[in-house]
């Protein structure tokens, strides 16, 4: 399914996501967004190291006409995704976060 051709009228959602930083982590996330019918309008990524594990904090603005809850549940299924929050509130900054 393609997203609507007029992005300005397409519903827009903000999603924040925390996932393990490993090979192809971002590609995996973006692939799910695309195949579930959304397009990425904006994306910001930061890394953080806590307890010897490197995490990615991703702030996504996505557009799509399908129910965004479906996208959220599909992202939550990814093995390396620790948290998905659907709102305008970003995840709390983590100690030791690096640009």
């Amino acid at each position, binding site marked *: 399914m393609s997203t609507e051709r007029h992005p300005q009228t397409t519903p827009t959602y903000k999603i924040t996501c925390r996932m393990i930083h*490993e*090979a*192809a982590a971002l*590609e*995996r996330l973006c*692939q799910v967004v695309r*195949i579930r019918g959304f397009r990425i309008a904006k994306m910001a990524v930061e890394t953080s190291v806590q307890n010897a594990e490197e995490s990615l904090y991703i702030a996504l603005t996505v557009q799509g006409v399908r*129910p965004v*809850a*479906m996208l959220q*549940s*599909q992202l*939550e*299924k*990814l*093995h*390396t995704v620790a948290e998905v929050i659907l709102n305008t509130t970003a995840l709390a900054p983590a100690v030791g976060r690096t640009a």
Partner: protein
Amino acid sequence: MNGAQHILEAFHHHNVQTVFGYPGGCIMPLYDALVDDVLVEHVLCRHEQGCALAADGYARASARLGVCIATSGPGATNLITGVANAHRDSVPMLVITGQVPSSLIGTDAFQETDVLGMTLGIVKHSYLVERAEELPGILEEAMELAQTGRPGPVWIDIPKDVLLADIAAVPSQPVTRSQTAAPDLGSAIALLRAAQKPLLYSGGGISLAHAEDSFREFAECSALPAVVTLKGIGNPGKHSAHNLGMLGMHGSRAANRAVDECDLLLVIGARLDDRATGKLNGFAPNARTIHIDTDAAEFNKLRTAELAIRGDLNAIFGVLTQAFRETPLAISDWRKECQTWRTTGGFQAADNEEPLAPITGPAFIRRLSHIAPDNTIIACDVGQHQMWVAQYYQFDHPRHHLTSGGLGTMGFGLPAAIGAQFANRATTVINVAGDGSFMMNAQELATIRRYNLPLKLIIMDNQCLGMVRQQQELFYNNRESQINLDDNPDFVAMARAFDIPALKIERTDQVRRGIETILAYNGPMLLHVAIAREENVWPIVKPGGSNREMIDEARRASADTKEIVA
């Protein structure tokens, strides 16, 4: 111990006894380690797609982990269809591929492909092992991940230098799987008690949750009228009095009618696939829905559920069974109505008893079902024969019916049957194929011969791509396009070239003896069954149409003949 040897140690620890693979450059360290291993049986298929589909069939038939191995580049790309097949049907599988040495990744090295990037959409998870010391942990995690929750294929891509690197022996930690309690089912029980016409709708998730026995107990105890998806065939058992059969595009009239009339749909371990539901807004129009599944992402994906319950199916069935044993459902009128439909709206293709009459697909499968021993495993390919098997073979257990449900992979059946035979050495395993599907993995005849598997191969040959031809006839003004296969090879001669005996039948009076002959033969044998080119699968719902608009042979001429793109 190097990385390759560690992989075999992990197999030993997890009781992986059989793997399917094909060697090549970057996976050679693992094949070198296999030379000294006596505990893991490596099955050499003749194409990597055959390896993946054999591992799939092994897993489906045994409820164990399927494992396939290939080298980098073309070895990995050849696996992809088989892995995608496992992904779509949630089959637990571990995929191991060699990769070019770490220092060469990204240099367009010989037989390099970006396996991780290429396979993201067809795996439950995947790994590129970047450091040798990560390998033990990744192996443990991958095997656990493939088999828990909603199962699926997990792919580990391992650079050659990692396979050769020394790895300290790491004692494996025993995996403890906790028993989860059933969620609160009070609301579900109340909805079921309030319903006048509740219907049980089960799918492949029953087997995935290893809940076949507890499901059957619940189904019998509740005596709910029941329908099944393609992958749920066998869930209620062939003696169930309440089973109305498969629903959907080629489902029974009884099943689709019951879905149409019910006021409560209890969906368990099913994902409301479009082949089952038809046009969604015409599906179960009067029903509220309770959806029970292991995977929360299936809830409200295609149809809003009044109640969505995620949890362990065995625990859930335990609670439901107890509830309805203590106080049975008062739905006798609805049961009677469904029984009437079951009597009149089942699959009803007539047998032609005329000895010289051509063999028809439904009659042949019906006869096969009568003659084959109990517990026979049937591995289908994809097409008309697949639907005739689904309609007319009486399965008593879902793991006896191996079919490519989600991906619809032609060429699935033969390697899947090989895998099933390795998982069940003493069981009769039959591959029912079409002539088109058979040719897609026919190289695996060599695998059957090599291991002297007593597989029975049945080719239902209508000299064309029958399901495509049927839809072209019905929905594309009979404009046949690229479906003709009348230049098929001589399948009997082809089998014999692989040292597999074979015979051909083409008349009704040859059916019984043909089936009995291949079943009695002590070894692999092929039965080439010639059937009419023009035969169709009935009934059919046109793609994108509503299930209440089923077309049968009598209505074919009056049917609206345009395919609908939903």
